[in-house]
């Protein structure tokens, strides 16, 4: 499954995790186990939790192309006990529809199991998404 907008994120994570991550390919979903859990507690429309790669592919298909993330920058990476890694990062993206800047900041909890991710819980600031939606509606 091909999600070009997720290439920058995939690049950042694979570089940050180095030889702890052995993806099955170069795509975003190749970093994950089939039964991986994807959790987005601060998602703009309310918390989103997706169980399994197949369902995540459907979710990603529905949002692919909405944001040009451009580049993800790793601010800090904290390798924890119990195969957990916490990462703080940001992107300097652009909302595809409006062209408005999307400078989002994130903190994520990742869990590794046998070289692939079994959990991604990613927090972001939904006020940014809401401001873009409001500006777009107002015809800005």
């Amino acid at each position, binding site marked *: 499954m091909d999600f070009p907008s997720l290439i920058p994120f995939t690049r950042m994570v694979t570089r940050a995790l180095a030889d702890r991550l052995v993806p099955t390919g170069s795509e975003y979903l190749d970093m994950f186990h089939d039964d991986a859990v994807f959790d987005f507690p*601060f998602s703009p429309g309310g918390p989103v939790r997706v169980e399994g790669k197949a369902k995540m592919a459907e979710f990603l298909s529905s949002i692919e192309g909405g944001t040009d993330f451009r580049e993800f920058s790793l601010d*800090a990476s*904290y*390798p*924890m*006990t119990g195969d957990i890694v*916490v990462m703080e990062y940001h992107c300097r993206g652009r909302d595809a529809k409006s062209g408005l800047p999307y400078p989002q900041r994130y*903190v994520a909890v990742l869990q590794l199991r046998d070289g692939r991710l079994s959990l991604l819980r990613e*927090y972001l600031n939904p006020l940014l998404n809401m401001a873009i939606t409001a500006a777009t509606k107002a015809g800005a």
Partner: protein
Amino acid sequence: MAIRPLQDILKAELGDLLAGEATSFLDLFAEHGVLECPFAPDGAMHQLIGKPAIAAYLKQLGAIQGSGGMELTGSYVTPARDWHVLEYRGLVENRRDGTSYAEQYLAVVRTEDGRITLFREYWNPVPVVASFGPDGPLPLGEVA
């Protein structure tokens, strides 16, 4: 899981990394400690440097906003035990109108020499803005 004051959760999770005599959340901070809120609205506090600034801000905030305690949902630590990340959730009380909302948190916590030197708390600004207005409970212009 039990609902406890945040300082009790921190003491339980950080254990011997914290010097024993602290009794309040503020007491856990080093004199040069830093409190950060990265997801705060633009017109609200994002960073407080030093215990006096943190003390003054928390005192002012306490009249406007209260906590019913937190439930710990995740606790992670580096092998060297210098950084903790805690996930927790709880109800926040708007003391102006008596209403409450549910909030979820992730805190990045650095400890050095028995005290917290960085407490970076990520929380969802949407329910905060819905309850208190676009700049949250304590807009920058009103910080003493």
